[in-house]
């Protein structure tokens, strides 16, 4: 992100939800990023992921709304790509189901057009999907359409900072965040560079490897959060987070948010009917949000299902 565009964006003082409505930004948060705002205002934030089109775009719409109701502060929607090299078996399978169901970028955008969630939406996909949208290998048509659909940002797991210039420029132009991932191996000068370019939040990869629900929180998470503590940007931790207790531990370790994907995709895969999935997703989001708040030291009644509130 160029300094110029950052300056430009900081001059704005409202944020836009996926419903397209502008919301005022509170005075203490000096950002024009919907995403950063959503995290800062809802700290500890819950960021949820599901794959669009798994098992159909109609179902996805209901599932996203359930996650929104359950307490998600940001929602990542996966746009399926045939070669998901950063994903573990759970999300790979979801992507295959979505592709088998005929999910296309156009269908994806139509879905986003239809969605009205309180939580801002991001698209998570691979770089080739961005490039191929439109007639030639060019990132701009995709970003333009994403902005038009009301998306707030992009996460591209196979796009490191070194290759991100064209996409970042397009995102800047359309006021979208391009979220960077900070890996356990990201250290020293690299870390400096990436953190200086963070847009929205820093996606802290909890462990080496791929996405996927794990039984515990890795030691690398704590190391990473310590390493990142000096940077004043929102930090959300993903890769392997599946339970409320994980969320609590991660928030307690200093994160501003947790990112959960595979655990939710598992629910979708397990549910025999959409309504069952809807209920379980909403409950799971609530559990996770509760865990996060517990980690932040807030008093949380386990019985009380918290509704996310507008500040």
């Amino acid at each position, binding site marked *: 992100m160029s300094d110029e565009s950052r300056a430009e964006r900081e001059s704005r003082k409202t944020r836009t939800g996926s419903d397209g409505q502008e919301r005022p930004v509170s005075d203490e948060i000096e950002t024009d990023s919907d995403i950063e705002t959503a995290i800062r205002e809802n700290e500890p934030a819950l960021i949820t992921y599901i794959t669009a089109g798994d098992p159909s775009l109609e179902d996805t719409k209901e599932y996203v709304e359930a996650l929104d109701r359950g307490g998600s502060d940001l929602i990542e929607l996966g746009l399926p790509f045939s070669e998901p090299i950063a994903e573990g078996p759970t999300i*790979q399978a979801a992507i295959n189901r979505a592709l088998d169901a005929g999910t296309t970028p156009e269908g994806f955008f139509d879905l986003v057009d239809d969605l009205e969630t309180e939580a801002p939406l991001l698209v998570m996909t691979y770089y080739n999907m961005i490039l191929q949208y439109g007639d030639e290998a060019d990132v701009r048509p995709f970003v333009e359409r994403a902005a038009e659909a009301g998306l707030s940002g992009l996460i591209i797991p196979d796009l490191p900072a070194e290759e991100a210039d064209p996409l970042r420029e397009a995102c800047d132009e359309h006021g979208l965040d391009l979220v960077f*991932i900070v890996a356990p191996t*990201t250290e020293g000068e690299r870390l400096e560079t*990436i953190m200086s370019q963070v847009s929205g939040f820093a996606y802290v990869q909890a462990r080496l490897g791929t996405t996927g629900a794990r039984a515990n929180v890795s030691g690398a998470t704590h190391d990473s959060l310590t390493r990142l503590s000096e940077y004043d940007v929102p930090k959300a931790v993903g890769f392997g987070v599946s339970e409320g207790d994980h969320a609590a531990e991660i928030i307690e370790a200093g994160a501003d948010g947790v990112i959960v994907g595979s655990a939710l995709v598992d629910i979708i895969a397990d549910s025999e009917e959409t309504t069952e999935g809807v209920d379980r997703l909403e409950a799971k989001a609530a559990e996770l949000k509760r865990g996060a708040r517990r980690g932040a030291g807030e008093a949380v009644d386990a019985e009380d299902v918290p509704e996310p509130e507008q500040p």
Partner: protein
Amino acid sequence: ATFGDYGGQYVPEALMPALQELEDAYERYVLNNEDGFMDEFRERMRDFGGRPTPLQRADRLSERYDREIYLKREDLVHGGAHKLNNALGQVLLAKYMGKERIIAETGAGQHGTATAMAAAHLDMPCEIYMGRTDINRQRPNVYRMRMNGAAVNPVTAGSGTLKEAINETMRDWATTVETTHYVIGSVVGPHPFPKMVRDFQAVISQEAREQIQDQAGRLPDTVVACAGGGSNTMGTFHEFVPDEDVDLVAVEAGGSSLEIDEEANLAPNSATLSTGTDGVLHGAMTKLLQSGDGQIVESHSVSAGLDYAGVGPELSHLVATDRVTPVSVDDDAALNGFHRLSNLEGIIPALESSHAIGYVEKYTDDLGDLVVVNVSGRGDKDLETVLEETEKRDLEAAPDVEVFEQ
């Protein structure tokens, strides 16, 4: 990007430090021969790998095609193909870098067996990812890897072939990157792999360029190599790239048709340079076989080793700048090439290499008077396929084998 508009490093952030470490090691050891790396590599390729390989005048092909045809005999490299040039280089480099473990993907099993051989030779633990479909149809190569002490990890995702195996190896690498080196099998993947693999394979053209001048007294008019991922192609072309009068012809697998069937998510060919479009796959910007939306399609060729939806980014660049001419021949022509070389020269070529011979047979008039053709590997591995595929067709060059069908 690395090569004009092509190349780059499109990988998860977790791998970027490893790529930088590799780039550093590549510059020190490969480019600058630090600690005598290249000396040791060359010595081992000589004693273990059997280099140099001959450049052989093909007497009967020369007569048939009425021009001088020379064959670069990479089929004589240990393991039966040029693959070892790269595998041994990378495993040795991993040792110099202090890595403790080797992983690699394999499709038909050629790169996997070469890597397993190199890892055994250099005493490095080694795991090979291979699609379940490929395991089932390339069992002898699986056994060879096991005999060499490598673990073979079946990949069940997707169609269970090369593309999925690469994905899975990248996932392993993203998990174990600190102690593990990923031996990519062709001039593909993120920088510095395409350059490094090319440099290890460039020994083909270094030898061939000297040999043709010794034996024919001048540089060739045309150099022909088959192209899948492109490692034998770049290896065969590299030293000739500055020789502007030398035509460089990359022969791709035309399969059964050059069309893409988007409905079936299938390209019944692997003619990426000829028909592909720009995109990013497995870490690099290059030409790809993909749908309009950007989904990678299943490629197909009778030759498993050419069966890949991408191609090395440097080749995309050399084609874009008109230095390399991409052509393709279909399965039938490749099978004819297989039989032609077997029958006329007593060399049974890999089905990959058979595409280069098939091109020479079919487009003879497009060749100059002095031609070098790379025989990238031997065809023992392909006998069953050739028999099955030959039976379905009426091929001019095929022998009758039915006397043995009892």
